[in-house]
């Protein structure tokens, strides 16, 4: 089994209200130097695939269901055991 970690974030230019609120929270705590915060989500999958087959499967899952391409971008990484 391969563990895959998919990172989903709002697309560049798409308003991220959650990121804005977290940033203002950090400012209230005194962290004035935080120029930007983006909040996204992480989905971990365990898959019986490797290499190109794994990459293809993840890409098709993301485009069909896991990611909304109008507002979100994603990347993924293989988690070393």
């Amino acid at each position, binding site marked *: 089994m391969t563990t895959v970690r998919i990172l989903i974030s*709002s697309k560049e230019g*798409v308003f991220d209200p959650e990121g804005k609120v977290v940033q203002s929270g950090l400012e209230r705590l005194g962290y004035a130097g935080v120029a930007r915060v983006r909040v996204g989500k992480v989905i971990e999958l365990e898959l019986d695939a490797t290499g190109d087959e794994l990459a293809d499967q993840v890409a098709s899952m993301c485009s069909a*269901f896991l990611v909304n391409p109008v507002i979100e971008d994603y990347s993924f990484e293989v988690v070393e055991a």
Partner: protein
Amino acid sequence: MEFAIVRFPGSNCDRDCEHVITRVLGERARFVWHQDRDLAGADAVIIPGGFSYGDYLRAGAVAKLSPVMESVAEFARGGGPVLGICNGFQILLECGLLPGAMLRNRSLEFVCKHVHVRAVTTRAAFTGGLDAGAVLRIPIAHAEGNYTLPEGQLDELRARDQVVFEYCGPSGQVGESFDPNGSIGHVAGVCNEAGNVLGMMPHPERASEAALGSTDGLALFRSAVDAVAG
């Protein structure tokens, strides 16, 4: 006339729609479970509000995988009138039956209140009986109603007459202060290019009887009945 009202686990405005259709308008309504596919005999389809599948992943994202949505897409392709209200609108967006996507409200809060919306066009299903420019007072209740589109597509949507409702003030004035959620162009409802699929965040079924403070929403259901009656 018969309305089919689609039910998902987590739908919670299904009975409100049925009440308006059967008790207020005297028409027929039947519920269609999300695992079923049979829309035979239905003259119009309503996807009601609620929290289908707990809004997991994204609002409407899981519902789009339900068997019934294949039938709804086929019904829509055949020109049948489809109305998605609130979560129903989110589902239609996720299915690709309507353009765009929803973000969290700009305030990050669940907003539940009466708002005013202006009918930009009356060519869409469920709007034929409205006057163009009519201002309706209808409640909203959502956390993810911040409508968005890829850069530049709002102009195209307007050019194709697909913006059906926009948030406004009591006399129809449009501006930032009347927009409850931060939607691009203050859009509250859109239709597909053909006009037979309509999605809107406000709840017309909650504004269809005087006892509820507004009857402005009833015109949408009545429009569908009149359209079928020809």
